[in-house]
């Protein structure tokens, strides 16, 4: 079975730049576009609307939004309206969100499993045209209903990393977005998600498991590493000790990076990134190296590989390179 390729963009760039990259990605064989949702950047739905208007066939969605920043009924309304701009090409990506980001705006990350599950239930009921009287642990509605019809079922991808969220994602999701790139992490994710699938009477063919990976490709491997290092520095800084140790990374090295980032000394933080860190938290290198690493993930059971930041030293050239040399290797 062919492996699908997705691509992630962060709307720190204006709508027209992301739409231009989306057109280019579509022309290069990517099937999915994911736009991150962070209050400090431009609005995810406006950015997706621009992408919807200027593309023809690529499937797109939030990569990912969370249940707290926006009430789930408005998330459902936004996605359903996007589906009118590009019928059948829209998906919802929903996850627990980032604790630090939520705290920055005074939002408590309360009971993430329940919040994600309930927001998805509300989303599905509303987009199915139901009058929703919902009494959840986190969310309550007293007769919410759209005044318009959603013409098709919209797939829901659940962003998941921890074992319980992965299990739930397999159980209730049409897809799972796993923020990882190392085979051992993906293997664990597939195993946990499969547990959830079993509970729901589903198989791995029913759920699109996507590896959402930090990615950097260049014909010159040194340039690929140089582009990946800043992103990996932030991933390492945000990783718990057990995750670092699992990948054979000395936690004191991570402390060094955290301290440098905190002091605003980015060159020092980036300089402290080791090859082990690059290997654990990104897919990085020449097209051939990337093909080998993606093939290993496909073998484990992913159905989609999402090319995440930084993509390459030059994003346009990297998209062309992926379309020309990498995607064709996974057509069958």
């Amino acid at each position, binding site marked *: 079975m062919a492996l699908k390729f997705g691509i992630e963009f962060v709307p720190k*760039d*204006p709508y*027209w*730049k992301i*739409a*231009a*990259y989306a*057109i*280019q990605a579509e022309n290069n064989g990517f099937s999915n576009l994911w736009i991150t949702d962070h209050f400090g950047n431009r609005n995810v739905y406006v950015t997706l609307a*621009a992408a919807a*208007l*200027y*593309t*023809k066939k690529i499937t797109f969605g939030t990569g990912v939004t969370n249940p707290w920043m926006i009430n789930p009924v408005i998330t459902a309304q936004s996605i359903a309206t996007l589906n009118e701009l590009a019928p059948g090409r829209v998906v919802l990506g929903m996850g627990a969100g980032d604790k630090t980001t939520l705290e920055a705006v005074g939002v408590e990350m309360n009971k993430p499993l329940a919040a994600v599950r309930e927001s998805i239930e509300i989303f599905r009921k509303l987009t199915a045209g139901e009058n929703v009287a919902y009494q959840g642990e986190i969310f309550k509605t007293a007769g919410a209903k759209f005044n318009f019809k959603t013409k098709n079922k919209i797939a829901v991808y659940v962003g998941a990393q921890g074992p319980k969220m992965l299990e739930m994602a397999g159980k209730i999701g049409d897809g799972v977005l796993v923020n990882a790139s190392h085979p051992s992490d993906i293997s664990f994710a597939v195993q946990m998600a499969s547990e959830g699938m079993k509970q729901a009477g589903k198989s791995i063919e029913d759920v699109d498991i996507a590896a959402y990976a930090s990615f950097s490709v260049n014909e010159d491997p040194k340039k690929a590493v140089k582009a990946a290092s800043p992103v990996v520095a932030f991933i390492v800084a945000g990783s718990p000790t057990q995750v670092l140790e699992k990948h054979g990374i000395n936690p004191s090295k991570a402390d060094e990076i955290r301290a440098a980032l905190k002091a605003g000394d980015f060159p020092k933080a980036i300089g402290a990134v080791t090859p082990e860190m690059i290997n654990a938290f990104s897919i990085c290198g020449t097209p051939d190296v990337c093909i080998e690493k993606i093939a290993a993930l496909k073998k484990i059971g992913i159905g989609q590989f999402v090319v995440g930041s930084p993509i390459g030293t*030059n*994003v*346009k*050239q990297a998209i062309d390179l992926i379309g020309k040399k990498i995607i064709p290797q996974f057509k069958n």
Partner: protein
Amino acid sequence: MDYPKLVELVPAEKWGPLSEQLIGVILNSKNDDKMPNALANDMLLQMKNGTSGTKAGLCVLMEAAVLLDGEKTVGALGDMQLLKVAELIVQNMLSGEKKNGA
């Protein structure tokens, strides 16, 4: 600048490669705030319709590229041996600087 006249100076066999070069200049530019919305939307429409490598598409791309990064645009034109086009753009940029008192 009269972009349709400039595009007339580009041989047809270079339209496609030049459009790719100019899109590269535009997307790699850090001067996002110099891009007028109407021009951005025109560019996206040309890209969506696959007409960036036509005369009309090149007019839009050249205008956007010059606005966002004149020097890199001239460099890209030079790399493609479109020296007359590059020269006219430089002249226009210089006369613009004079008008602005630079």
